[in-house]
């Protein structure tokens, strides 16, 4: 292939391919992961109490210190009130009318490897397109990308089913396992870092999570190690009336590197389900973490019935000098999104980046953004947020850029753009900019506009129908962010953008 062809092929892959649009149309306007797996589950009794907290801790065979940690969080939580400052409206959540623990019965005795896991569960992931076999993952397109490996931790309701490629990762010194396993196998690391970025007192939902988290992923990359493959956790809520409270802890030791992907789906149900996760990332000197999320929880139907309430606390602490973190999120699902992946830029010369696509259609409400807290000298941050509102949805960017007095010679650049499709939705921008030293430079730009009529007409005059034209223009609008995703995710995200906007025109 000539250089020209390579370039052209790369470009054909960009934007929306015809194939993407066809796939979208073939899906007949609905959420594609809305089916459920019929499987026998063991539940803890409904509701929340100290006994439930003890039960969860007991199920995971946790040490005393962790139970105490959970109970302290629970007692604290009882005194807290739910935050209502976000621009989202929902009826009061009855925290006693939920299950806090649900585990497939077949997982009662923990399988030794994925080969022993109930085939029904494995089939669930196969249907979702998540590889739970240790196979090469081929990038979806025209043989362009090299075969790559992605290690997966599969979390089903409250428990981790298992993790792939563990042996190969262990050879490199990388620990990748469920957090319940890490508590048992690597207690020192967990005790040292758990709650050190998001303390159990942090906020209402994080405190709730601290009390009742049941599983999640743990990653440790030793000094100087570049993780040999991408790591990924795939969250599936399946059981009814069950909240998912996972906790992820990633520690990148000095001069290490890891790219981590997170995906999530849930069945279609008429009732709302609560998801209150915590992700903590610790990054030491010269280390780098890339964290990408494609959030595709069930968004509810056109009338706003059902869908996930997603109240998530994600924070990265660039604890060392020259530490670097990059958050990329594609938020297409959930009835309510309340999520602000943040960067504490503590080390000198550390860097934080946040790239976000948030799409809200129908009755969805999203209030999402980031916090960039500059504490170290010469720290840099960059925020690119693309919000798209359609239907009757409300989409809010909320962000904080804070330059502390000692964070001299630091930089921030923020761009947040909103696109409106239809006249019944809302797009809002609520940035907080706090600059407490003069040598730092902060730039914030935001725009809000509708999908450009001239662009749509131009596309249509070349033969594309309205929905294809909107998908094309919207994909152009979000391209800066899509480009920051790993290839497989970029393809998935791109088709999700189109799917999420179905029915928004005409």
């Amino acid at each position, binding site marked *: 292939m000539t250089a020209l062809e390579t370039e052209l092929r790369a470009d054909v892959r960009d934007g929306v391919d015809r194939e993407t649009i066809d796939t979208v149309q073939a899906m007949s306007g609905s959420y594609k992961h809305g089916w459920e797996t019929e499987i026998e589950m063991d539940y803890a009794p409904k509701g929340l109490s100290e006994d439930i907290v003890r039960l969860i801790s007991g199920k995971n065979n946790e040490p005393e210190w962790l139970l105490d940690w959970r109970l302290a969080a629970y007692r604290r939580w009882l005194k807290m009130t739910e935050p209502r*400052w976000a621009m989202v409206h929902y009826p009061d959540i009855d925290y006693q009318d939920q299950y806090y623990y649900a585990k497939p019965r077949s997982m009662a005795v923990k399988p030794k490897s994925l080969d022993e896991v109930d085939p029904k569960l494995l089939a669930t992931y196969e249907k979702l397109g998540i590889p739970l076999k240790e196979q090469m993952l081929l990038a979806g397109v025209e043989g362009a990308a090299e075969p790559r490996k992605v290690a997966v931790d599969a979390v089903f309701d409250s428990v981790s089913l298992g993790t792939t490629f563990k042996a190969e990762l262990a050879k490199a010194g990388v620990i990748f396992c469920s957090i319940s396993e890490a508590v048992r196998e690597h207690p020192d690391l967990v005790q040292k870092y758990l709650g050190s970025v998001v303390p159990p007192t942090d906020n209402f939902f994080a405190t709730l999570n601290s009390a009742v988290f049941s599983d999640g992923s743990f990653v440790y990359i030793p000094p100087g190690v570049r993780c040999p493959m991408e790591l990924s956790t795939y969250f599936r809520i399946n059981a009814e009336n069950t909240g998912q409270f996972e906790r992820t802890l990633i520690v990148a030791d000095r001069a290490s590197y890891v790219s981590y992907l997170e995906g999530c789906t849930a069945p279609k149900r008429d009732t709302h389900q609560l998801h209150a996760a915590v992700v903590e990332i610790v990054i030491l000197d010269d280390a780098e973490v890339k964290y990408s999320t494609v959030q595709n929880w069930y968004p509810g139907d056109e009338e706003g019935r059902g869908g996930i309430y997603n109240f998530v606390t994600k924070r990265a602490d660039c604890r060392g000098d020259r530490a670097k973190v990059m958050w990329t999120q594609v938020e297409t699902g959930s009835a309510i999104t309340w999520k602000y992946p943040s960067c504490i830029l503590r080390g000198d010369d550390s860097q934080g980046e946040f790239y976000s696509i948030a799409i809200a259609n129908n009755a969805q409400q999203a209030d999402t953004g980031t916090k960039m807290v500059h504490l170290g000298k010469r720290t840099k941050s960059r925020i690119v947020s693309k919000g798209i509102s359609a239907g009757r949805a409300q989409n809010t960017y909320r962000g904080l850029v804070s330059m502390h*007095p000692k964070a*001299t010679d630091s930089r921030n650049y923020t761009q947040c753009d*909103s696109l*409106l*499709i*239809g*006249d*019944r*939705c*809302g*797009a*809002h*921008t*609520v*940035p*907080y*900019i*706090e*600059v*407490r*030293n*003069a*040598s*730092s*430079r*902060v*730039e*914030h*730009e*935001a*725009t*809000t*506009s*509708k999908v450009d009529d001239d662009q749509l007409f131009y596309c249509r005059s070349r033969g594309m129908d309205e929905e294809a034209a909107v998908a094309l223009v919207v994909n152009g609008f979000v391209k800066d962010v899509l480009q920051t995703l790993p290839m497989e995710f970029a393809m998935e995200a791109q088709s999700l953008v189109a799917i999420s906007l179905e029915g928004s025109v005409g």
Partner: protein
Amino acid sequence: MLPKARADVLSARIAGLSFVPGGWLGAAREDALSRLGMMGLPARRDEYWRYTDPADLIAAAAPAAATFDAGDEPPVFDGIDRLKLVFVDGVFDAAASDDPALAGVEIDRLSTAALTDIHWARELYGVLEARGQNPVARPLAALNTAFATEGVLIRVTGRAERPISLIYTHASETSDVALHHCIRLEAGAELTVLENGPAAARFNKVMEVDLAEGARFHHIRAQGRDHERRAATHVFARLAEGARFKSFTLTANGVLTRNEVVIELLGNEASAHVAGAAVGDGQFHHDDTVFITHEGRGCESRQVFKKVLKNGAVGVFQGKILVRQTAQKTDGYQISQSLMLDEDSQFLAKPELEIYADDVKCSHGSTSGAIDETALFYLRARGVPEKAAQSLLVLAFLAEAIQEIADEAIAEDIRQRLENWLSRHEG
């Protein structure tokens, strides 16, 4: 019901104020007092007071402020032909004022209008302030409506041939003043209002501006150079179809200044421009809080706020463009920028967009940073001395705000003030 702590703060604040009942004004005051009773005075944990501590504004007694002598700098607007109305510590000074006669303009004082049974201002006094309490409470404005002792009521039916100039002077170190002005421009009318001077040790002002179809209102004010004053000012404006509102505020010094502007664009094709330039050195806290609501179709709004800060000065900007579902074809623009001349200063901003209509073009930008060293070097390499080069760059930074002044003579006057300020505050 107010929590007890807040109720106590409110009682302490109003204990020394005399409430004047009776007549149309008394009724408006009673309404305001009951609004105030519902919301209480501002507190630091209120969302729109997170960057400005209201303590001095809500304290029972006004913190003392030394009076101020501007030396040989002539008063602002000195060279402008205008109709002067002078207030000394909030008391109208008839001797120092011009005869309030201007073709097509009715001018009354609040204190005398209160004695009449019927006055046009009863349709306006406290009305726009009350509308402006939603969705964000502005308790200091309600406090003003309830207790203001004086103000001017201006009704314009034609094109006012001269600007009306409100001149405030501050003679007592403990004066605590509330003035409340109402301005109504009938269809097609035009008026320019100038305001300048330090009004009191602590000043609370409300100006309600009601613009009928096609009316044009231009407002330029220079808040005084006296450093120790505290001020909370409010402008509430309502615009009918095709009306134009344009305002510019220069704030130099002042330990605490909060300028709130609340504008509703109700008619179609109306336009509102609000601009401000603030310069502060040392103990200076300056807060612009601006809310513009678009309801009519095809309206335009522009917010341009620039702050130059040094020696620990604090600049705050909270601005919102709210576009309701009816306000298609809205063009909204907002920029807030700070230039920090040394390490200690702070810029705190919350520039918001809240948009419910799709066919709109709205944007905002906010920047903060030091002076551009490359530009400074370039000027010096061309032979401009450093101080002069710095002044030049600071004025260039402020230019976009000053451009919002339509009258070139006034703009030049303001520019001169800024140059003087910069030369006084060099180094």
